[in-house]
């Protein structure tokens, strides 16, 4: 039940060209900024958009191969899909929405209903099983959309931000449930998400797509530890710098030098955790080997700490406590000194 896809398609002004593989039972998360082409990729996998070039194979069966004139229509694909805007059928009740796929695949009305009712119960919406989608809240609708896609026991599951409208509590439950289901699930899953936590929790493999191209592939831990683009770095909460390593120092494009923990050479990326960055009003004298001047470009509360964006030769993000921020007088444009211990700085080949 492995999926291999090479998809080339033009969407408006955006050329999309991505390649990936998903092994049986594996979950692939597709991350990327808005408009990167994530939903487009899912639509191609579902058969709803025609690729211009490439090949999609599931389980040895070719789903798409424009060059050979092959295209399996959507309803013949053994898939389940959750759409970004749910698209629950407005004229069917909740339980009939869930039963739809079962009926379409040949189940009798009674058995489809029974299975669907089970799914609705699993989503904690039995009270709403005979309501129309119009009277569901946003999150309720998304849970039903998820149930509808899962109920058909698909071999390829396509999820377009399945958890984004869920409240924090339900999200935990549905995420755990989804994880549970995905663990038992023999098929391949492609999950589009914005939430790195979702990706970490659910995915075995990550593909980062930007402007229609794959910019990074790897396990969630790999990607989160060693981001290769600014977008990914922000996503996982790191500052990313690019430079040339010479032993244990890295010269950035801006000319500044960063001392790192381990020696290497050639082009590298340097990743720094915001919590590891210390801020001072005057140049500190101490053990940290990396000390740079910077100006405050933005301050945003982040949980109980404040996240400070810094401009300068070494653009960084720092996390500070509200008390420290008050003491440092971190207004926009204020000048500060930033310091990071060399042992906190990871460098890896670019």
């Amino acid at each position, binding site marked *: 039940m492995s999926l291999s896809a090479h998809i080339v398609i033009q969407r408006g002004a955006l050329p999309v060209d991505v390649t990936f593989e998903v092994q049986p039972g594996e979950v692939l998360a597709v991350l990327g900024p808005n408009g990167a082409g994530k939903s487009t990729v899912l639509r191609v996998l*579902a*058969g*709803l958009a025609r690729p211009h070039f490439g090949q999609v194979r599931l389980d040895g069966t070719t789903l798409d191969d424009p060059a050979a004139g092959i295209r399996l*229509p*959507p*309803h013949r*694909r053994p*898939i*389940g*899909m959750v*759409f970004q805007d749910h*698209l629950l*059928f*407005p*004229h*069917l009740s909740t339980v009939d929405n869930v039963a*739809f*796929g079962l*009926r*379409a*695949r040949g189940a009798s009305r009674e058995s489809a209903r029974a299975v669907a009712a089970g799914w609705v119960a699993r989503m904690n919406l039995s009270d709403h099983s005979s309501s129309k989608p119009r009277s569901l809240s946003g999150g309720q609708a998304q849970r039903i959309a998820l149930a*509808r*896609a899962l109920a*058909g026991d698909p071999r390829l599951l*396509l999820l377009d931000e399945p958890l984004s409208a869920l409240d924090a509590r339900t999200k935990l439950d549905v995420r755990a449930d989804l994880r549970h289901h995905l663990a038992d699930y023999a098929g391949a899953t492609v999950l589009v998400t914005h939430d790195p936590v979702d990706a970490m929790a659910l995915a075995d493999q990550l593909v980062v797509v930007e402007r229609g191209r794959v910019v990074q592939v790897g396990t969630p831990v790999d990607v989160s530890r060693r981001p290769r683009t600014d977008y990914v770095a922000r996503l996982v909460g790191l500052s990313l710098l690019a430079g040339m390593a010479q032993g244990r120092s890295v010269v950035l494009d801006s000319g500044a030098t960063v001392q790192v923990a381990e020696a290497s050479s050639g082009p590298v990326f340097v990743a720094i955790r915001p919590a590891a960055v210390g801020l001072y009003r005057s140049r500190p004298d101490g053990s940290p080997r990396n000390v740079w001047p910077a100006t405050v470009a933005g301050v945003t509360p982040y949980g109980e700490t404040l996240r400070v964006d810094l401009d300068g030769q070494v653009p960084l993000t720092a996390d500070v406590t509200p008390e420290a921020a008050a003491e440092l007088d971190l207004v926009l444009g204020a000048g500060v000194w930033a310091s990071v211990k060399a042992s906190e700085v990871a460098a890896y080949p670019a």
Partner: protein
Amino acid sequence: MARRHKAQVDGATGVPAALLIPAALAVVFLVLPLIALLVRAPWSTLGSLLSTPEVRDALRLSIVSASLATLISLVLGVPLAWVLARSQIRGRGVLRALVTVPLVLPPVVGGVALLLAFGRTGVLGAPLYDATGVSFPFTTTAVVLAQTFVAMPFLVISVEGALRAADRRYEDAAATLGAGRAMTFRRVTLPLVAPGVAAGAVLCWARALGEFGATITFAGNFPGTTRTMTLQVYLALETDPDAAIALSLVLLAVSILTLGLLRDRWLVRQ
């Protein structure tokens, strides 16, 4: 203060004047002639008119044939509307234009065309007659055919409009759930455009009920088998215009009753 708001509230829950005035004009224009008819109608003779078996037969025939014509139009016309709105078939433009033909053809000419096609000596009718001895004209079947020919385009055009206005992404969703085009059509598309289909069916039924020219030309005019209420009205016009008005009002009353009942049922779902 409260008073000012009150006024605004009323203004808003009501209908804006820019819409209300033309709407009211439309109603007056459509209803005034009816009122004039009602005033003029020979109410005293209505009872005796209605009790003639001829009129009762004609009324029954009208309703049965118009309903059958609507049924056939639904069965054949809704798929045709779908093909026009959704498929990528070549020559859809030509097809759509051809479908509108019976709308424009003077009904009597439409009747002639039907005779030329399905009559005893018609393109399709002649071989049929030679082979089986069956011929359509002068039968109730011919009435239904004539009404279908004239009324189906109304259904097709309004359903096509509704299909085009419908959100096609629901059909995508159905496809990912394993529903083929036919099932998607039946279980998703059709319910979504139900109001449009209902509107089309109403138009179709009403047009069939009022049909005259094609019916008399293709089906003839024989009491009990092909004389519909409209034909009865036209005959009455020759000798007793007041009776004709009375008969029309009967036709009206029946159709308003039928439509009123049906539409309420259909529209409640929405």
